[in-house]
């Protein structure tokens, strides 16, 4: 079983070392790759100085294109399992081994780390939780399955979905949309309770200013993914 952690990083010089060391320490059976999405800060320099396994995008692609590069790498290098893991220190590497074990045992295609099963750890702001609840309801409506944390960036996928995502993956705000696509494809998706941390440095990609755009865009993307075959 070859397992890969994909760490998309954009301007994460303050978090990237901690993130990678966390994985090396707590998920020893995993390889990892940092996808530097043309960061404007010293993310690249820091990764090179530490000798981290790095893919350096020459131009900024956004989160979707960055993560997809990781899937493309995972596919070409013959990985059986790949997991997305945010480079901002929000995710905990200690869950990865358990997740991989559950993936194998239950023959899952996708396993999402959810904050909202046990409701422990950082729970995000009230408004964000409200938005996430709405997406949960919308996804339940179009697919019939309850995904408690559809915006979670911590998701593990099988070889089949590695190949699928390498071929097509949404450009921006990819998480809820890709869950719907995968469910509609008929793949087996489950969630596992995890605890996430509040980001320590850097800024979230979704600000108050563009949250309305985010809600509309992702709603539309979910509906389109539901009717697209």
């Amino acid at each position, binding site marked *: 079983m070859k397992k890969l952690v994909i760490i998309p990083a954009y301007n994460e010089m303050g978090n990237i070392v901690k993130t990678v060391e966390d994985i090396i320490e707590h998920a020893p059976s995993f390889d990892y790759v940092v*996808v530097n999405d043309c960061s404007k800060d010293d993310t690249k320099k820091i990764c090179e100085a530490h000798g981290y396994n*790095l*893919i*350096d*995008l*020459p*131009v900024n*692609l956004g989160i979707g*294109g960055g993560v*997809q*590069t990781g899937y*493309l*790498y995972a596919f*070409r290098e013959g990985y059986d399992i790949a997991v997305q893991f945010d480079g901002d220190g929000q995710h905990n590497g200690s869950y990865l081994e358990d997740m991989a074990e559950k993936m194998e045992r239950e023959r899952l295609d996708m396993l999402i780390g959810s904050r909202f099963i046990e409701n422990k750890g950082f729970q995000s702001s009230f408004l964000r939780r409200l938005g996430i609840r709405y997406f949960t309801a919308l996804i339940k409506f179009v697919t019939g399955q309850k995904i408690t944390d559809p915006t979670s960036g911590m998701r593990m996928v099988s070889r089949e979905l590695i190949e699928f995502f390498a071929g097509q993956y949404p*450009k921006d705000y990819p998480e809820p949309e890709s869950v719907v696509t995968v469910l509609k494809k008929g793949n087996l998706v489950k969630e596992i309770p995890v605890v996430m941390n509040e980001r320590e440095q850097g800024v979230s990609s979704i600000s108050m200013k563009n949250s309305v755009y985010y809600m509309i865009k992702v709603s539309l993307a979910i509906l389109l993914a539901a009717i697209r075959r």
Partner: protein
Amino acid sequence: MKINIIIAVCLVIVILGSVRTVKRRDLDLKYALTWFVSLICMLIIDIFPGFLSRLSDLVGIDLPINMVFFVGICFCLLLIFGMTVTISKQAEKEKRLTQELALLKKRVEQLEESGRY
């Protein structure tokens, strides 16, 4: 009648200019065709104004100039739509190229390192 001649001269200059752009390969012939056709239509309307009034009579538009505006705006919208489609396609290609380039860069660095030591 004077204005018709001035516009005709302008249009001919623009047509010649666009032909030159295609000849210098600054503009792809694929896209130039749209411009040629629309410029020639404008020239026809300019030289034979009766054509436009008969056409607008036919579809029931009182003022021929309204027909010009209507058709012109529709044409512009179509053109812009076509451009957003083209941009989307190009963004997809650009994304793929960027990803391939990044993976190649990584591969080359790996090979260089393994060759050196």
